[in-house]
């Protein structure tokens, strides 16, 4: 019985499966760490600026009350719909 996607807030841990959002810790949107020494402005943007999009965003999640693994998810911030989940590099 699965043909419709419900606007809801459960996440699928790549290791454990579908769980309530309260099982997880949010790691924020994915902000790639600068590869070389950044300018002060680049460093400040990396540390403090977030895009905060109204739409699909890639973000970190940690299965705190489960396998304690980090993974990444694509989530629509307007609906909390999870599009995809995967380990780093998989999305």
């Amino acid at each position, binding site marked *: 019985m699965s*043909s*419709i996607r419900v*606007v*809801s807030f459960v996440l699928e841990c790549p290791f454990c499966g579908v769980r309530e959002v309260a099982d997880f810790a949010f790691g924020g949107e994915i902000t790639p760490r600068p590869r070389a020494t950044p300018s002060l402005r680049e*460093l400040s943007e990396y540390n403090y600026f977030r895009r905060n999009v109204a739409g699909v965003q890639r973000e970190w999640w*940690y299965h705190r009350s489960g396998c304690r693994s980090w993974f990444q998810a694509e989530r629509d911030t307007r609906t909390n719909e999870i599009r995809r989940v995967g380990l780093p590099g998989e999305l």
Partner: protein
Amino acid sequence: MARLPPQPAERIEREREISFTFDGRVVRAFEGDTIGSALFAAGRRTFSRSFKYHRRRGLLCCSGSCPNCLVAVDGAPGARACTEPARDGISVKHLNATPSLELDVMSLTDAVGGPFTPPGFYYRTFMRPRRLWPLYEWVLRHAAGLGRLERSRSERAWRTEYRRRHADVLVVGGGHAGLAAAIAAAELGADVVLADEGREPGGRLLWEGGHELARALAERARAAGVEVLRSAPALAHFDGLVPVWQGDTLHQVRARLHVYATGAIEQPLVFERNDLPGVMLSGGARRLAALYALRPGERAVIATTCDRGLAAALALQEAGVEIAAVADARGAPSAAVAELEARGIETLQGWTVTAAHGRRAVTRATLAPLASAGARAAEASGRTLECDLIVVSGGDAPASALVAQAGARAAYDGASGQFVLAELPRGVFAAGELAGDGAPERVAASGELAGLEAAAALDASLADVSRERMSLLREQLASAHEPAPAGAAPAARAHDELPAPAHDELPAPNGARAFVCYCEDVTAKDIGRGVREGYDSIELCKRFTTVTMGPCQGRMCQRSSVGLIARETGQELDAVGTPTARPPWAAVPLGVLAGRPIEPAKRSSIHGRHRELGARVQWAGDWRRAYDYGDPEGEALAVHASAGLIDVSTLGKLLVRGPDAGEFLDRLYTNRISTLKPGRVRYGVLTSDAGRIIDDGTIGRLDEATFYVTTTSSGAGAVEQWFSWWLADWGLGVHLSDVTQALAAVNLAGPRSRAILSRLTDLDCAPEAFTYLDARQGRVAGVGALLLRIGFVGELGYEIHFPAAYGEHVWDAILAAGEPEEIRPFGLEPQRILRLQKQHILVGQDTDSESTPLGAALGWAVKLDKDEDFIGKWALAHTAEHPAPSALVGFTLPDGFVPTEGAVVLDGSGAVAGQVTSARRSRQLGCVIGMAWVPAALAGDGASVTIADNGTRVSASVVTEPFHDPAGELLRS
């Protein structure tokens, strides 16, 4: 009062008598009674005093909707007597009346205060003079509120459990439609949960003659596998999560589809003194008679705007109530009127009730034709009848709050005079009265259709199975409806054939005692005043008058307040709209939402010994720790003089293994870890990429590929999370194991610790064989252990890590071996004194989220010259070039005054320039020592800083070196 002869649907079990007390007096009841029905049977008519004017209030809705019967049960205020089951031996008390319900001194506000306490009264009156505010506040705090929480109630008195329930379909509301929907979906194989607030599912069927059908449907639902939650109100709809409160369980129901069949709420009428005990909604009067075999009154006047009132007249007459007259506000007689007349009940068509009379309860009612405008005309043309019961029915308002939270939109439907559902979000279905399909001939079809549609949405193959059935049901519903207005699908309709009178056709209630809102004592006049003051939108008027904001959450007042605002502003109802429906929909104790703490209290494996040794145990984060053993200063002195033993099992412990382990730790710590030789230990600081301190601890290298990392006690979880996050990002060849709870650890410290340890281990403990910052693996008291020679407390010491199962064994062995040296166990508090003497910082105590290692005197642990990048390097490089304005230093004070942690440091001009983070008296040093953030200019040895602590000012001198053993000779000895 005698009960009626046995009623077919009655809920009471007459052979099972119980009793409870109300305000100390014994009340007899039957099993199955509610507190309210038992009190009513005992003759009580006043159930509460109103919020503001302390007016008498009696049973009104008998369904848990209105605020009129709020009582305290066994000390917990806020229970509704009309739905709260009567249980043997409980103690029920009234709320909001002093000294008693019958004699309430605060009812003076009703007699004299009314004109002086319009909405906004408090905000305006108690502004001036300012200095009197504390007095005003004291008075208002005592006058406001309903009931008192018992101070002695322990925090764990609420044993609420969370339960997570994932389902295919959640049906909210277990009336006829809800049951039909649940059955239809479940019989097609869906996993269905049905939540109903009633004691048994069935809704209206239970008291309107359909109780047998209700019980048969409930049985069929259970047989189909529906999980039926009884006495379980749904509280809200949050993005698909519906919390359902049932006794001591909070079900967090996560369904893929939702069917709302929450029914409708019967609305009262607004007329002068419409709150007198004896004014009752038709549903309430019928429930008393049908479920509890009680006669709600001897002689009733009925005022209605719909067929419900007419049906109630018939039902009440059968229960032996004399019907004085029925005032039907509609212009033309409905089909039911003929039956009333056949039974000899007089019906006044186009009439309504304009006033109730009586001192303690209703004794008379004034009826008048709608056409007569104004109170005087009504009096002239109206009739006043003797009665002790006024049964009112102002029509039904769909209970749309939850479905609105789910995203449904309501629109005003002029034809029915109601706000109806105009648009439902995907995956949400409405059935029954909520959808305008409450009429007996439609309700079952409406429910079944919703259930089938939900199942079809779950699985396309189920849509095929039930396609024919669904189209049949749709036809059935459509033929019963008038054609729907274009664009409003699925539009709902009132189920009476005759339209109810519009909001502006009823006489304008202009008295000062015509209540719109029973919860907060808001009258029709108050609404008018609010609008005239400019609060002319529903949301503003709501905030100004507090209408719809009380315990009933708009159940009783939403529609009449919208109608009155429309009338005052000359707008259409549609333009006024409805206020936003906010959670929680049902009153719920906060303790239920809080649940019970599910974080386990952590105890070290040696905890039992600490208890036996008389430890004072305190919380330290999640841990229960031995704070001291009764003599913190003496315990600290023992460590200096001979030896002490402390349980440090709470330290976070991580094993970091793999070919890239060294590189991994190099990237995380501010100093070099990969250069550490096997068998050696190094201190390390973790910072964020903003250069702020996250945690600190020691890293021991066990072999080429294995590091043993300790963290602070409170930081263990965060550090593991931090490590695994970067590991996931970098993908290095490293494996992390959190062994925090697998291993116990003790710190054996003091000048005689070497001698004591030597008796327990085969390791060579000679100073040159086991030097400072060595890590050795060996046996201690026969147990395989890792020994780290580190000195957090500032004396020669060994931190011994070993399997937690041997905790008490190793602890006992060390204490026994140290007996000749008079070894003493020491707790957390003496450890804090000892570490402060060394100016060893405690992350989170001496640092905050803005502290960098450079400011916190840990610059020696930051290797900006290391080639490899590390987390925080860039920010720390910037900080090194732009030194922070303040620094963490030690200070001393003459023995005596110990400043509070958090006391402020003042600069030369007397401005706040820092704060004290730690301070203790040190018997070893004979003075008071501490650490504080001070301006950089004052961060040098010998500088003098002023500490201000609650009016006390002291001058402290700065010391940047450790107070005790500054050269570290004792550590290395």
